[in-house]
């Protein structure tokens, strides 16, 4: 453990008892402190058929376990179509987009204090559409990973080590969901942001970027056929992205890939900027770091939630062909506010439900 001076003492938001900054749970009442924020359906969310619930001629029908209306057969929103998470130090927005029937992306965020200062954690997973139950896969992976990261970072593990532990536990969570033949699968990208560096870890084609006025750069490289073709000098990036195989990924998390080889990269920002973690629903429409920096800055430095929502809107306006997830964290991190923040969760109807394309 540490020998340095401990940060100032805190109190439990639930019972007011003093707690140590390294505590995961309140020693007196057991409340989870600084619980991760996850893009799950909000507590108490009851799915309701969007068609039958507004048709007076239609009796209220049950919703099947698979999420379909037992009367009209319509796929019922799962409560994950759109969600926004704001932890102050970082924030994220995920949206179903305009073309997909459900949101198969998931995100999980957390913050914690350590002797070395505050740490922000972000995980984004994109369910592989060709696998069974991709929405469950992405959520299970993000959930398992953020908890593992939080435990590991609080324990004082190096960010790279914490990242590899988290991806391993996420893989185990997915292995439990399926078998080799029926393997729910997802892409994976995590970012551990501390006072001096950003450590990213990934499998597949969800990405992390460093956004700044100058020196904006991509922090991850895709596990995709397109990227491999570019890396081998076979194709220019623009041509590779236009090819039908652009989105064929070569690595992922799932029971059908016995031994995933996650990549880890560490980046020390030379000055202030913002970390962007996102799914391909965003970068499809702007793959360049400089272009994304122009879209996000300077607003992302002071308003990560509002800017993440703006980037999602940018992708929707550009076509919204895929699910979109955007997480932003200004760097350097601000000190954590006293008292663990309560993760707010604002469920909204998906942006696509508000367009005229869909019948009421």
């Amino acid at each position, binding site marked *: 453990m540490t020998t340095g001076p401990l940060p100032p003492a805190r109190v439990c938001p639930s019972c007011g008892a003093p707690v140590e900054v390294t505590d995961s749970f309140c020693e007196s009442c057991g409340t989870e402190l600084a619980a991760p924020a996850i893009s799950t359906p909000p507590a108490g969310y009851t799915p309701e058929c969007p068609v039958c619930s507004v048709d007076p001629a239609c009796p209220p029908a049950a919703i099947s376990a698979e999420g379909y209306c037992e*009367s009209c*057969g*319509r796929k019922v929103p799962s409560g994950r179509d759109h969600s926004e998470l704001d932890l102050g130090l970082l924030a994220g927005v995920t949206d179903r987009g305009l*073309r997909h*029937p459900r949101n198969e992306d998931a995100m999980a965020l957390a913050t914690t204090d350590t002797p070395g200062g505050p740490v922000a954690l972000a995980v984004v997973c994109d369910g592989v559409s060709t696998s069974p139950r991709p929405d469950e896969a992405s959520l299970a992976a993000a959930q398992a990973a953020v908890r593992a990261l939080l435990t590991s970072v609080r324990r004082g593990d190096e960010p790279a080590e914490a990242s590899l532990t988290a991806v391993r536990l996420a893989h185990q969570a997915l292995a439990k969901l399926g078998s080799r033949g029926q393997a729910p699968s997802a892409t994976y990208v995590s970012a551990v942001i501390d006072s001096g560096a950003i450590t990213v870890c990934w499998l597949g084609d969800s990405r992390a970027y460093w956004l700044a006025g100058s020196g904006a750069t991509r922090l991850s490289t895709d596990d995709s056929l397109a990227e491999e073709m570019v890396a081998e000098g076979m194709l220019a990036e623009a041509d590779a992205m236009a090819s039908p195989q652009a989105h064929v990924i070569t690595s992922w998390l799932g029971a059908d890939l016995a031994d995933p080889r996650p990549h880890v990269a560490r980046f020390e920002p030379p000055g202030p900027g913002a970390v962007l973690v996102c799914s391909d629903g965003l970068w499809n429409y702007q793959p360049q770091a400089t272009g994304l920096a122009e879209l996000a800055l300077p607003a992302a430095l002071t308003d990560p939630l509002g800017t993440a929502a703006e980037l999602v809107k940018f992708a929707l306006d550009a076509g919204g062909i895929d699910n979109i997830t955007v997480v932003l964290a200004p760097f350097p991190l601000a000190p954590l506010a006293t008292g663990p923040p309560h993760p707010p969760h604002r469920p909204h109807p998906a942006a696509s439900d508000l367009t005229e*394309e*869909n019948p009421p």
Partner: protein
Amino acid sequence: MTESGFTVDVDQNQYLPEGGRDVSAIVTVTSGPDAAGLSGPASAGGEPGSAEIIIIDCSGSMEYPRTKIAEARAATAAAVDVVRDGVWFAVVAGTNTAWPVFPADGSMARADSSSRAAAKQAVAGLRAGGGTAIGQWLQLARRIFQACPAKLRHAILLTDGKNQHESSEELAAAVRQCEGVFSCDCRGVGTDWEVSELRTISTALLGTVDIVPDPSGLAADFAAMMESAMGKQVADVALRVWTPQTATVKFVKQVAPTVDDLTGRRTSAGPQAGDYPTGAWGPGESRDYHVGVEVTPAGIGQEMLAARVSLVATSPSGAEVLGQGLVRAIWTDDEALSTKINPRVAHYTGQAELAAAIQEGLEARKQGDEETATAKLGRAVALAHQSGNEDTAKLLAKVVDVVDVETGTVRLKKQVEDADEMALDTRSTKTVRAKK
């Protein structure tokens, strides 16, 4: 593998264009290596839960040639030899009436070495004489089965002639009463029987129909049918199709191993659901079904459950769901997605058309309409070739001279053996399995 030992896989293109209504899916049902012990003691295969009746034609024509009745006796004996210990069995003889041959009191016997010997002795005494009233034979089998506690009930029916001594209405009524009571494989020996007549019976009673042109082939065929029947372990399995309120089931067809249209066999299974009978299942058995549903279109990007297809075992204690698959519809404006034809759906659509073309072509030929016969059988030749259905292609080549296999250009043969034509007719519904 699900807990029940059955798997239900759905193969489809779930994407529809804007306003699209037609959803088509191939549902593959496979029973596990050990389907026994599923729905109680009634399902134990080859165990006391099974009952077999052999129905043997003893009409006067079975004497011409004399070998026919002799081979029928030998075939019945061969089938009796294959009945496993403990299985209930009986032998029925039919003319313009029907009577129990073994046991003579019209009950069923438990198979063991002595009951098998007694049955074979009774069969050896069978003589031919009299008419043909198949409805009477089926009714007697039904009464014998119904007095027996076994749930897996199967019959083998052998005839050599047309149903001449009762009306077709009487036969149809008898078949209706037997539906759901027992399954029946039908065999026609020689060439004086009616393919469509036996096919009507075997289809309604969820069995097979085939020709045994030479009486000497009967024993091997009977033994094989009985072996297959002994392998069945789960009785009374239905395909239950749930659809949304505004949707309509257009058709439900078994498409492998043979084409069998089940659309008209629907019985209601509560609101928005209907059951289609599939008969009995043995371990490791796999069949494909083609399900067509018409749905009310929803907006682009919307998803609908077009059908939920379950495999249901019915027993006195209620219905047990053995497996389930989902047929989906998603509306998209991406034409690359919505115009893609699922290869298995395409394959089985072609196999069903092949069976229909053969039956219509042979019927036209019988009516003397050579033009239609040439066109239909030509189309069948092309379809059999394209789908790699070599067995059917060989049978077709005995009825037509193939000029060009690609375009299906054919000439009707002047001389066709009756047996070849009947073999083509009875086997027209056999399909080639589509690769997954």
